[in-house]
């Protein structure tokens, strides 16, 4: 099992979600984070123009079993990219175990 953490543009979320469903990844959790990165966003507030590298991003946390890892990554890579700086990142972390709270089952069975 792997944990796939994807940090994407909020405006790409709907497309990414559909692509994930397309490869049978129907379970995940997400929340919004502030990303500090290369992209700069111009703001003006009361006459002060400033540009910030702190941008709202969406954080997806997807735990999948090994056979799904690649499909998932490809689904995200192909839909979340706009080609402009700031498209985000995908990270893969090892997961040792998973439980489904409802039934108590564990292992890959608990994932779907």
């Amino acid at each position, binding site marked *: 099992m792997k944990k796939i953490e994807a940090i994407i543009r*909020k*405006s790409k*979320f*709907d497309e990414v979600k559909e692509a994930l469903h397309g490869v049978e990844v129907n379970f995940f959790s997400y929340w*919004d984070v502030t990303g500090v990165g290369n992209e700069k*966003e*111009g*703001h*003006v*507030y009361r006459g002060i123009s400033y540009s910030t590298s702190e941008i*709202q991003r969406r954080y997806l946390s997807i735990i999948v079993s090994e056979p799904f890892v690649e499909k998932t990554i490809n689904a995200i890579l192909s839909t979340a990219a706009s080609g402009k700086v700031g498209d985000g990142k995908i990270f893969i972390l090892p997961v040792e175990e998973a439980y489904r709270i409802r039934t108590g089952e564990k292992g890959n069975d608990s994932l779907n």
Partner: protein
Amino acid sequence: MMVCTALVFFMHLGFSFLEIGLTRQKNTINILFKNFFVITVGLLLYCIGGFNLMYPGFEDGDMGLLKFAGFGITAPEGGMGFGYADGGYTWWTDFLFQGMFAATAATIVSGAVAERIKLKGFMLFAVLYVGLIYPIVGAWKWGGGFLDAWGFYDFAGSTLVHSVGGWGALITIYLLGARIGKFDKDGKPKALPGHNLPIASAGVFILWLGWFGFNGGSVLSADPELTSLTLVTTSLAAAAGGVAATFFSNLLYKNYDLTMFMNGVLGGLVGITAGADQMSPTDAILIGLIAGVVVVLGIALIDKLKLDDPVGAVAVHLICGIWGTLAVGIFGAMAGFDQFLVQLIGVGIVGAFCVISSFIILTIVKATTGLRVDKEEELNGLDLSEHGMEAYADFRTNES
């Protein structure tokens, strides 16, 4: 009367709140900006126009144009804002009261087109619509024009204010298209829930309050009996509209939908506006009840037509505005088939004029400033893309 002016002014906060509350947070600043723009520029335009109407130069030009078009408005003070300055209030009060009204038409449009219209395009549209179309139509009736001569009755503007705004809204959302995500691939409508229902509810309360000024002030005299009757009919129609919309939508959709309650109240208010001084309380309740049902059906209809009206402006202002205008021929002191016919014709002529002029204005807008923001800007929200600011900078958001 001055109090009424203040209340009508306050309606602009009501509209702002309603529109903000029923849309997504990423477009909040944009909507507020549009509302500030409409009230300030509306007032200034009204002032420029009002003054010019007092001096022969412009007046000749303006009236000439209208004369040319064949609508026999010949009185020198045929324009808005001066026509009935014979009551117990001053010219200044009248100017301000009317000026506050004028901006309303554009505000109605503002709600319907929210979350996707280009700011510059909207500003251009608002200037032309408030500066030209609204006063021309207003002159036909309130300025003593031909609709008035025919006996068309519209007490406080179901047609002259609300429908004018509503038609503009209808045409604009038709040309603009739906927000991204409003309809799925199969054309089924999806919900894009409003982000702040307390604010939206406050908007409805404030609008109801403002309607006391809108309808109360339209009595245009201090006759306490008529004014107070007007307030009673206004409130009862609002209450009936809200109750009807809630229970009717509960029947259809099996839930207690607060936004339907709100739209029902507004529908009742718009519905009673044309005949607030002609109705008995029972008539008012009936008009309100029907308006409540009409609003719910209207909102469903708009969805079915694949139009996207985030705040329900067309259902509330246009459809209930028409209903209210016709209701003058059905209920109350003026009811009668002839009156109904006149009302119908009035609705038709105003509708045709607004539709055509909206088309023309929007074509100009499209050609010059452009009408709709591009996809990326829309997805990121107009607050960031048009204003470079966030409405709720300290809050973690959640929208999809």
